[in-house]
């Protein structure tokens, strides 16, 4: 900083903000987001909305849901079974996704693969990610038929995209020295992966897989409801969309909440154990 030159405003005050590019981008992003929000509210379609009664009704519905949960169209055993199906769908999509993502990310990590291969796969993955999961499931449902195959395949695509990103970042952080040491001892590419990359990144990879499992549980619930993939999500959809049975919706919501909380507790534990830097 040169002390001799101080920028002043017209009335003689000193500029205290540097006015860098970053600040400007932050300001413009905020302004644009606010403007779009206001415009959005003006453009919304408000057909059939009576705000006052809707809020009162929602409050009543929530009260019924959370304070009087019961099951009327199926019993507890069936509920547990349906939760099991949802967990199963999530598990399958995660585990198959993890295996495929592992090999793909070996081809994406810039220190393990040539740049052009890495770029092609990155673009491919970005396109896969851009299609919402529910659209993948519905598209697969046309050719594979409604059922677990379509659901798992649809969820698989996003799991792969997510894990490839996480895995390849992990691989790229592997110490260069390990590569050099292995290469100088005459190791080929596969040796480097097997005895250099995997042992150093295994715990990191596993925690990402578990985080994805947590996400996939939520996705599996959604797919059950929106794409008829079965499981507790489908029961939720039936209870609210066909039977209008809020008490049952409440019970199902509680059962989903319990599983989600359990998964969250386990994943925070994992995070604390394996990435102490990112969580406090």
């Amino acid at each position, binding site marked *: 900083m040169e002390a001799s030159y101080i920028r002043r405003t017209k009335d003689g005050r000193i500029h205290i903000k540097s006015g860098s590019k970053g600040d400007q981008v932050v300001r413009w992003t905020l302004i644009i987001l606010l403007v779009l929000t206001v415009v959005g509210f003006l453009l*919304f379609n408000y057909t059939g909305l009576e705000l006052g009664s809707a809020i009162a009704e929602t409050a009543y519905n929530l009260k019924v849901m959370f304070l009087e949960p019961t099951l009327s169209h199926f019993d507890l055993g069936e509920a547990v079974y349906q939760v099991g199906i949802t967990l199963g769908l999530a598990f399958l999509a995660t585990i198959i996704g993890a295996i495929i993502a592992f090999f793909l990310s070996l081809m994406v990590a810039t220190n393990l693969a040539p740049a052009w291969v890495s770029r092609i796969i990155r673009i491919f993955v970005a396109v896969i990610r851009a299609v919402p999961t529910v659209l993948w499931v519905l598209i697969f449902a046309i050719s594979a038929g409604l059922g677990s195959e379509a659901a798992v395949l649809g969820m698989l695509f996003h799991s792969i995209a997510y894990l490839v990103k996480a895995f390849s970042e992990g691989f790229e952080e592997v110490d260069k020295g390990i590569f050099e040491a292995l290469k100088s001892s005459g190791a080929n590419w596969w040796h480097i992966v097997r005895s250099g990359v995997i042992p150093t990144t295994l715990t990191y990879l596993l925690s990402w897989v578990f985080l994805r499992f947590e996400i996939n549980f939520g996705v599996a619930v959604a797919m059950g409801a929106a794409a008829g993939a079965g499981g507790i999500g489908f029961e939720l959809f039936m209870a609210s969309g066909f039977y209008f049975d809020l008490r049952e919706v409440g019970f199902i919501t509680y059962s*989903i909440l319990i599983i989600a909380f359990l998964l969250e507790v386990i994943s925070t534990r994992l995070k604390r154990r394996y990435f102490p830097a990112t969580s406090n």
Partner: protein
Amino acid sequence: MNEKAMRKSRWQTVIFLLIIIVLTYLSSAITRFNFVEGMATIPEAIGWIFSNLMVTQESMDKLPKILEKLAETIFMSIAATTIAAVISLFLGLFGSKTTKVNNFLSVFARFIASVSRNIPVVAWSLVLLLSFGQNSVTGFLALFIGTVGFLTRAFIESIDEASQSSVEALTATGATYLQIVSKAVIPQCLPQILSWVLFMVETNIRNATLVGILTGTGIGYTFDVYYKMLNYNAVALVTLCIVITVIIVDLISNYVRKVIL
């Protein structure tokens, strides 16, 4: 590593793999998922996608209508994210260890975040649909609630990470709570917060499709209608529009993130 430790770790790997295999077997049994069949449908499905999901002249006529719905969806997601970000900023300030007002509010903020995040967006949209009816506000609220949960958690983490020392410095000069928050905490966390908000806009555009299918609003509804009419050319066009939108939003937010972080 000596011989014994190596053998032990090998055993651990074997047991771990066995557990995974058993779990995989159980899940495929309970969901009636057939590996071979599932894998066999991938080429079939891709072939089907390439032969049927083609944008034709006929479906291009529907483009204005689709774009209108797409715009509604984008506005819905941005509005939900922005409003949720304002609320979450307060909840985040209350919830963070460095800037909390009192313990009660801190626990309250964390509780709200946890509940609204863990109740799936599906449940929210179905419950809201019952009383709010089939219009944009339902979709907006469903996205809004989920976003509040996620952003509050993210903001609490960014505030905790960023502001320890500057808060201490300002406290030492005798600054009030509001001064500390507006001069130290917010300027310091703003890039992080903005980056989370942009991430959430992108996620919400994708989630809006799901919420749209369930509540009959926006682009999700359009997709659902064409899908059920078996008009696959229009389905392809809708999907293409969503893909292009998501990629553009992704590119913009990547650019902003690169500049501000």
